[in-house]
């Protein structure tokens, strides 16, 4: 008679029961993870517009989940002894099943084994696998139907693709938004140019303009408030121009001629830089000196009547290289200041344009409802007598059309202060009927200055070096609106007062 038939049957049943439960719960876990992943992917598709077809996505997740489950389920193993021990413990069988199984297997000749096996057989008949391994739903698996329901609801709801950039824009009016975008774009263009030309002030201002553009897009506000902000920045720009003008007048004499292009194809600045490079050596060879003189002659053709060029030529011919080098450096710095002035002027026009556009926005609201990128802006009939081609303005920065950086693309240069080329017509002046070429600006200005050594016990740092950085920092803070409004005017007056006394002191 086979003594351990029931014991073997029971151990097999217990093993099967254990494996079924383990694999079922494993399937539940894999399902939970798969549904979680599907839910997150659906959130991504719904809110952020991820370009994935739902069928492909769910099919992929389902297939992967199935593979993972098969792999894990295949690895689930259990021997007969652990399940019999569990049965002993659960049913209070005092280790009979497990001991009998082990001894019948390994030590069948033990004198106690027959009685032990007989008792185990009797106990095995009473063993119910469901009682040994009852099915208990793990609490975490209750999340499966909940996530499934949420997934179905989410996939049925039609939601507009969500963008973080849209946050906080609910209260921003359309025209402010448009102008904000436009200012940001212009700011980027100006920044690119300023970086190429290495113009610090223009770079800083370009970043201010971009920052203002972003703030207009992001923060609450109507046209009036936005216009006020633009005006604040415009005032800051104006002060920057004044400061620049004062500095260039203090450091050199002569008019501010910029962007001249020579017949050799080089710009004035490039020619000056070349001459300066040649003059680095005090003992300039004769051939090199002749080349430098030729360069000065080319410059003279463009900058007619420039006393600095005449003086430069004389020094070159006299062999006074140090004086010649100083003159070239002065001319170069003057040229750079003029370029900077041009950039700032362009920015000022951009700000004015935006401010005016915002002021007009209230009157032309029905026309401005659509985005400028969707619909070309119509020509505005402003009441100030100045017409703007808004399509052109929407694409390019105002002032960009009448200026090209030397060395960028143009074959010839021109002055923004009255000198025009073939294709360089000011758009602002394109619309009026008058075809008379005029010079705008303050005209030529001359200012002489006196250099002298500092007096004893006087400050070692010049007022120009001391005031300007502080003034610039104060203006930046004012422009960023970090100062309460009631203090701004006082700060502005303080620095203006210092700036006004500066020329007089000298």
């Amino acid at each position, binding site marked *: 008679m086979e*003594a351990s038939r029931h014991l073997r049957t029971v151990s097999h049943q217990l093993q099967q029961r254990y494996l079924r439960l383990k694999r079922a719960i494993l399937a539940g876990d894999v399902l939970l993870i798969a549904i979680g992943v599907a839910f997150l992917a659906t959130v991504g598709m719904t809110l952020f517009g991820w370009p994935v077809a739902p069928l492909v996505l769910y099919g992929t997740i389902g297939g992967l989940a199935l593979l993972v489950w098969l792999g894990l389920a295949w690895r689930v193993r259990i021997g007969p002894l652990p399940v019999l021990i569990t049965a002993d413990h659960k049913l209070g069988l*005092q280790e*009979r099943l497990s*001991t009998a199984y082990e001894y019948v297997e390994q030590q069948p000749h033990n*004198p*106690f084994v027959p009685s*032990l096996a007989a008792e185990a057989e009797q106990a095995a008949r009473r063993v119910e696998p469901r009682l040994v391994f*009852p099915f208990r739903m*793990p609490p975490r698996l209750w999340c499966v139907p909940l996530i499934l329901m949420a997934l179905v609801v989410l996939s049925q709801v039609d939601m507009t693709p969500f963008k973080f950039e849209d946050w906080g824009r609910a209260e921003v009016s359309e025209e402010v938004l448009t102008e904000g975008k436009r200012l940001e774009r212009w700011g980027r263009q100006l920044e690119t140019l300023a970086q190429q030309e290495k113009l610090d002030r223009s770079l800083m201002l370009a970043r201010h303009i971009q920052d203002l553009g972003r703030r207009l897009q992001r923060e609450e506000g109507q046209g009036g408030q936005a216009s006020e902000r633009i005006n604040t920045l415009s005032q800051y720009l104006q002060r920057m121009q004044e400061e620049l003008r004062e500095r260039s007048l203090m450091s050199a004499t002569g008019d501010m001629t910029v962007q001249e292009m020579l017949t050799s194809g080089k710009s004035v600045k490039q020619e000056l830089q070349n001459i300066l490079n040649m003059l680095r050596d005090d003992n300039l060879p004769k051939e090199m000196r002749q080349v430098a003189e030729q360069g000065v002659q080319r410059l003279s053709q463009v900058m007619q009547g420039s006393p600095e060029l005449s003086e430069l030529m004389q020094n070159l011919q006299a062999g006074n290289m140090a004086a010649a080098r100083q003159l070239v450096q002065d001319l170069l710095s003057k040229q750079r200041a003029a370029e900077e002035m041009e950039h700032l002027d362009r920015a000022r026009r951009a700000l004015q344009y935006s401010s005016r556009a915002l002021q007009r926005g209230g009157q032309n609201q029905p026309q401005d409802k659509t985005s400028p990128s969707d619909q070309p802006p119509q020509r505005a009939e402003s009441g100030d007598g100045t017409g703007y081609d808004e399509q052109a303005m929407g694409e390019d920065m105002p002032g960009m059309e009448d200026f090209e950086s030397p060395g960028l693309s143009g074959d010839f240069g021109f002055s923004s202060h009255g000198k025009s080329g073939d294709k360089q017509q000011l758009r602002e002046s394109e619309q009026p009927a008058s075809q008379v070429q005029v010079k705008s600006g303050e005209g030529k200005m001359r200012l002489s200055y006196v250099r002298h050594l500092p007096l004893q016990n006087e400050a070692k740092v010049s007022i120009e070096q001391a005031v300007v950085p502080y003034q610039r920092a104060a203006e930046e803070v004012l422009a960023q609106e970090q100062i309460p409004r009631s203090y701004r005017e006082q700060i502005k007056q303080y620095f203006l007062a210092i700036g006004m006394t500066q020329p007089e002191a000298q």
Partner: protein
Amino acid sequence: MADVDMNDNGNGHENVEVRVEALRQDFQRVRDEIAKVIVGHEEVVEGLLTCLLCDGHALLEGVPGLGKTLLVKSLGAALHLQFSRIQFTPDLMPADIIGTRVVLQDERERRYFEFQAGPVFSNIVLADEINRATPKTQSALLEAMQEQSVTVAGTEHRLERPFLVLATQNPLEMEGTYPLPEAQLDRFLLKLHVTYPSFAELSDIVDRTTQRQAPTPEPVLSSASILEAQQLVREVPLASHVRDYAVNLGLSTHPAGPHTSATIQRYVRYGCSPRGVQSLVLAAKVRAFLAGRPNVDLDDIRAMLVPCLRHRLILNFEGEAEGIESADLLRDLLQTMPGRSAGAARQPA
């Protein structure tokens, strides 16, 4: 799986069952005979029988007057075994226990040495108040307890089996006593606490001892039966996971053990020796045997843990200073290691 024929009448698995059952009944009769004299103390009697079946020794600890000596004498009387009693005193010498060589003279007046066996040459030795003798004398028992032999003047003398040393000691009177060294404590299979009787037990004791002549136990078990039972006990099946549980318990009595409790980590300097785990498993087998079960279960191990190991733990200074009982530490360890999950398959969850 190998097949086992439960109707194998040839050599006698059935005979074994019969013999096992007969031995159980004999031991039950021994219990009954002792119960004629001793009221209560069932656990102590069970412990003494366990020692007898394990071929081990027992240390009985209790205050004077609880019947420790009477209990041991009653056990000796219930068995067909030689019984001797040694009263340990400070002036007791080792030769008084193991014997000595004496000079004798034959008919031709020639003198010669002859070994005179001491009281240790007996089946059951009652070492009464063992802690009153000096360590030198106590150690005279070491070889006898472990090797069951005595060496005198280079000659080894075997002790007759079964050999059982039952020692008593008084935990209160510490003046003029010599605590047993760890090496000797470790040789005792069990340390049994003789507790004060309950009201009903004390009433019964008073009635039995003051009204009429106290009955004396009748010898019911021979040495041959005891030796046979000792052999059978060692055959009681022990599942591997139950054995592992006992081993883990033994390891966990050490402060750096794998599943040790916080109290053991705090109060124990050194845990039980491997001999302690051997004693635990053997005592658990006896418990299953005497209970009529064909295998050892976890409860047997748990039940025998305290009497088997309580005298084998060496407390550290903090434990000694706070008066920590080793038995409490072991009970705490049992709480830490219930053993229900030993070797079992975890519920799928």
